[in-house]
């Protein structure tokens, strides 16, 4: 009841008055009718009236006031309404008695501190007890009836920034320090602190006991944090933490609101924030009136949560009304979007927005229902009636990226290892690579390979077959090997070609008749071919293969297959088939010649092809498209695809793309491969490349410099005779002849000789053939 009446005496609105000088601190008297403002050049008492501030008293008297008037802090006694204390920047603690009749109200002066006093604090219930904390690291307790301090507390650390008597525990006070510590003291025991803990990194500028909750202490530091500590347990526990945007200069619990506190900053940020400690990410209310940093904040009445007074360096004194505060939460954006480490995308939005019908694009979306325990409690919380916070409930969706596609680079490694770049007929390479891409769940690449095969491979059959209205049967094997969807693009492409080709068809046929017996032959066999193809349904090989098998399945397939397999195994001998191959057309029937030559060309990479493309389907026609496609892949970052296609296509496309671009692609791809330690693949790519600078990569750092074994000087031209001492440098340790070929030597004793000799020697003996006694080893 008493409380009610007291509260009713406070009334007013947001108002301010100009001070003569910047304020350092303010304090309010118990009945909330007067406020004292203290600073370096100001020490005044203002009355709080209905319609504004009125100056009541100027305590700064004398013509040239001493530094004792330069206040770092001020406090109005909460029991004795005439009693004030100030902390002076010169280290003095001064008490003032407003009841004194003369102009100078100074009552007592304590000059015991050696450095600036940062804080003074009256005991909340004891009239004559005053506590001070100073830059010199000491806290002193004064009995105002005596001339000097009654006890001195040494923090044993750096400067004291704040001291606060506990409101509930008679004997306890807290002190915060510049080194980040907070200490708890018992006023009766000046020898040692009761507890100490590190609260912040960097100085703790302020602390404040909770007015109701016995164990709660709020601290604010230069590290821009406000922390609430629970002292009631054995171990001091941080229960709330608010991250602000600037160092925290003052913190004050809001009366009658258990979870609210007000803060202001010392630097840069001029606003006063009121936080709900349970909602640490957004201020509950903001007062934005000041033009310079706020130096002092105080709630006008200890039981009234609606009036806040503040003083500032901009020389103004404000009374803020809570209803006039701005509420940042109203302006906050309740939507959030974030990418995870592995490409997941989390998206939070108001539930009302998210409740709409889920669209077709919702694949892979997971919605976390409210109350999911895996997420921090503040994320989904039960609405609290007392909280006074606008309730926003958001729904969180996480779009997980599909494993294997964009996650990591596994696909890259797999692809690099599985792609075949040479050693098989062109069509087979394409086919194989398409399969690889498909297996790795990369449909676009797979389709690209298929299309390339169709565009550039053995020309006659596919198009001719469509010319002959055998589309249905002709496509059947394809449909079997690729899904319909993937093929559709390729088919469209082909249909287009075909349509155009239809124009040529007559001519083509004529040409065929005129020039290419074999084409004609295959054409003639077309019906038979596709009839047979249906039998070969399970054969997932290429069209070309199908054709092949269809044409002469009995004897040609084995003949084709074996040399090719051999090719893959023993790649270094790749050029040989070029010489071999030309014979085979002569040997085999005219129908096969076409196929064989195509395959020859694909792995020899030396173009003999121009003639082989049947004129009715000019491969050049596709080159711009393919070029564009390659550039597209390279742009997308898939340089692997660009280079692979470049190699497989070889001369078909090479001239279309300028050397520099090619070189750039090769370099990027080789670099990538080497980063993934795919040395073999990288070497293969280097070998297969046709750019001069790339091929040179294999030739670098292959020189071995050797010194003469006699004169120890570098050998210049020949490996076995030294120019300077004219001695044979490399003599075989076994046969004592000069080694002019492969020279092998032991890295331990550096003796060696002919490869075969040393090999044989070391089969029989463990010791060095030179007789040096070294135990050589041949591996």
């Amino acid at each position, binding site marked *: 009841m008493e409380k009610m009446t007291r509260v009713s005496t406070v009334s007013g609105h947001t108002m301010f008055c100009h001070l003569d000088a910047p304020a350092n601190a303010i304090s309010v008297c118990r009945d909330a009718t007067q406020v004292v403002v203290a600073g370096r050049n100001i020490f005044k008492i203002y009355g709080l009236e209905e319609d504004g501030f009125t100056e009541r008293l100027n305590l700064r008297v004398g013509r040239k006031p001493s530094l004792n008037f*330069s206040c770092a802090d001020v406090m109005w006694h909460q029991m004795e309404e005439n009693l004030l204390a100030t902390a002076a*920047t*010169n280290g003095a603690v001064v008490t003032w008695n407003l009841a004194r009749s003369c102009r100078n109200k100074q009552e007592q002066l304590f000059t015991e501190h*050696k*450095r600036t006093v940062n804080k003074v604090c009256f005991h909340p219930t004891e009239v004559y007890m005053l506590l001070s904390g100073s830059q010199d690291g000491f806290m002193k307790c004064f009995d105002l009836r005596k001339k000097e301090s009654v006890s001195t507390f040494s923090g044993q650390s750096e400067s004291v920034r704040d001291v606060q008597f506990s409101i509930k525990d008679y004997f306890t006070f807290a002190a915060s320090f*510049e080194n980040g510590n907070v200490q708890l003291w018992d006023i009766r025991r000046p020898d040692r602190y009761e507890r100490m803990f590190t609260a912040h990194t*960097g100085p703790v500028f302020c602390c404040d006991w909770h007015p109701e909750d016995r164990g709660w202490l709020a601290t604010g530091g*230069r590290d821009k944090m406000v922390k609430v500590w629970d002292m009631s347990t054995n171990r001091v526990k941080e229960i709330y933490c608010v991250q602000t945007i600037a160092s925290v200069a003052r913190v004050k619990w809001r009366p009658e609101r258990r979870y609210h506190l007000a803060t202001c900053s010392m630097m*840069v940020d001029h606003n006063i924030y009121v936080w709900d400690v349970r909602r640490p990410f957004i201020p509950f209310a903001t007062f934005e009136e000041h*033009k310079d940093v706020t130096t002092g904040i105080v709630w006008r009445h200890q039981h009234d949560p609606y009036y806040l007074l503040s003083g500032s360096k901009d020389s103004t004194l404000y009374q803020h009304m809570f209803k006039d505060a701005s509420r940042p939460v109203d302006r906050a954006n309740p939507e959030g979007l974030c990418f995870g480490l592995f490409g997941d995308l989390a998206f939070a939005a108001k539930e009302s927005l998210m409740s709409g019908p889920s669209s077709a694009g919702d694949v892979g979306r997971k919605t976390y229902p409210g109350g999911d325990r895996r997420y921090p409690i503040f994320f989904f919380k039960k609405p609290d009636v007392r909280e006074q916070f606008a309730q926003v409930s958001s729904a969180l969706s996480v779009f997980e990226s599909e494993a294997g596609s964009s996650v990591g680079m596994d696909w890259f490694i797999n692809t690099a290892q599985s792609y075949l770049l040479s050693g098989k007929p062109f069509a087979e390479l394409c086919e194989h690579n398409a399969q690889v891409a498909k297996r790795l769940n990369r449909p676009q690449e797979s389709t690209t390979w298929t299309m390339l095969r169709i565009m550039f491979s053995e020309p006659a059959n596919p198009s001719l077959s469509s010319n002959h209205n055998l589309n249905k049967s002709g496509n059947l094997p394809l449909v079997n090997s690729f899904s319909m969807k993937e093929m559709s693009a390729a088919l469209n492409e082909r249909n287009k070609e075909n349509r155009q080709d239809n124009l040529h068809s007559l001519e083509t046929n004529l040409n065929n008749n005129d020039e290419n017996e074999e084409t004609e032959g295959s054409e003639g066999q077309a019906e038979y071919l596709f009839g047979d193809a249906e039998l070969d349904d399970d054969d997932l090989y290429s069209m070309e293969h199908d054709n092949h098998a269809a044409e002469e399945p009995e004897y040609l397939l084995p003949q084709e297959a074996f040399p090719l397999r051999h090719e893959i195994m023993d790649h270094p001998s790749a050029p040989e088939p070029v010489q071999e191959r030309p014979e085979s057309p002569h040997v085999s029937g005219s129908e096969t010649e076409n196929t064989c030559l195509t395959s020859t060309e694909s792995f020899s990479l030396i173009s003999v092809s121009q003639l082989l493309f049947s004129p009715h389907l000019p491969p050049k026609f596709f080159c711009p498209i393919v070029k564009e496609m390659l550039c597209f892949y390279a742009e997308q970052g898939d340089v692997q695809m660009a280079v692979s296609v470049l190699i497989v296509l070889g001369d078909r496309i090479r001239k279309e793309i300028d050397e520099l671009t090619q070189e750039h692609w090769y370099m990027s791809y080789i670099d990538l491969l080497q980063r993934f330690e795919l040395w073999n693949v990288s070497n293969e790519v280097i070998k297969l490349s046709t750019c001069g600078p790339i091929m040179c990569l294999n030739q670098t750092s292959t020189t071995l410099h050797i010194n003469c074994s006699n004169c120890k000087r570098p050998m210049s031209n020949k490996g076995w005779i030294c120019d300077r001492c004219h001695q044979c440098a490399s003599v075989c340790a076994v046969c004592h002849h000069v080694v002019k070929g492969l020279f092998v030597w032991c890295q331990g004793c550096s003796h060696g000789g002919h490869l075969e000799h040393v090999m044989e020697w070391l089969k029989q003996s463990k010791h060095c053939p030179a007789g040096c006694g070294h135990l050589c080893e041949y591996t």
Partner: protein
Amino acid sequence: MIICTKKMDYRFGTQCQFIQNQVMVNSEKERASLLCMKALANRGRLDTVSQQMASHPQYLESFLRTQHYILYMDGPLPQPYRHYIAIMAAARHHCRYLVSLHSAQFLRVGGDPLWLQGLEAAPPRLQHLDHINKVLAHQPWLTARSHIQALLKTGEQCWSLAELVQAVVLLAHCHSLCSFVFGSGSDSDSTPTPRVHHGTPPGYCLCDAANGNTAFSPPPAGPTEKAPRRRSLDSSCEVACLLEQIKKSQEEIKERKGDRLHSQTLLHADVEKEDEAVFSADPSRFVSDPEFGYQEFARREEDHFQVFRVQDYSWEDHGFSLVNRLYSDIGHLLDERFRSVASLPFPHSPDLKRAIWNYIHCIYGIRYDDYDYGEVNRLLERGLKLYIKAVACFPDARKTPLCPLSWAPVKASDKVHVNLLVMEARLQAELLYALRAITQYMIA
């Protein structure tokens, strides 16, 4: 000639002393040598500055870390800019050593050699910085909001706030480092023909400053023993108030400096040719308005320059937050530097340390409410005060020879310690003024 040989002795002597020192503090020695190794590995050479600081390894560590951070690590300014700014700052105090050091590094990080021809050859953006450089180096209290505003609002050639803060930190760092270099005598390393000697009256001798190594001479006895050399200085010794003395001797120094300047200009012609050889190291090309120098703050107080009150704007409360916000992490590094220099064990009383620190700040117009400045006069002997003032305000080998600085420390590491204090206090003073101006700019 004699002077030269003596000088050689002196340098050799300190080197020995220095090495002895290192041997004596064995546990610290390892730490120091480790740090030196690191520095050596980093830069391919171990500069004399690091060598000097190695007697205080815990400080050296944080110093090197800060220096590395502002010169080479993340920051808004490109590396050639950073070194060029360092050159500009060092040139203000005519510190050949730092100028040539940073010139070399400037070229190494790919700076345009043309810029080294002088300030006019540098981009206008850097030229704009010249004014604040000048002011911060000599009369930091003149730094005003308008300077900051001018730099941030000059259209095309404007600076961003973050860049400016880094530049200011760099300037302050290099200015104060000049003091250290001067105080420790490292500058002579790079000057094969120190002009000082030509311009110095024959009565002066460089070895004075190091003589303290050989024998401890109690402060009052010191001047009388060495009286013949410093007669002219000590003639004013009877004056009671030491502050007055300082002022007077300051004037004397100035007078003499004037003389010396005069004689220098005469001698300058002689050394001109030699200078051609070390053309790249001549710092005056990076300086405009070379006559601008330190002026007594106290004399100007009556004008409109307010005393800077630490209680209103301190490093811990204000400077740190601002600098750390605009140039991330530098606050912590600088904080560590200030802390480590404050925590260095000083063999004398902590009061003396505070007196030195506050005296330097006082020279720059920064006052502490809670300090009785009478203490400065009680604790600091005159020679030490002169030494501090010369090192802090006139670290220019051309103008102030070390020889008349009579302060004779007991140990070489004490001297290094005082030099460190001067450097850090000066750094903080410049930073406080610059940061306060930036704060004022931001508020407005």
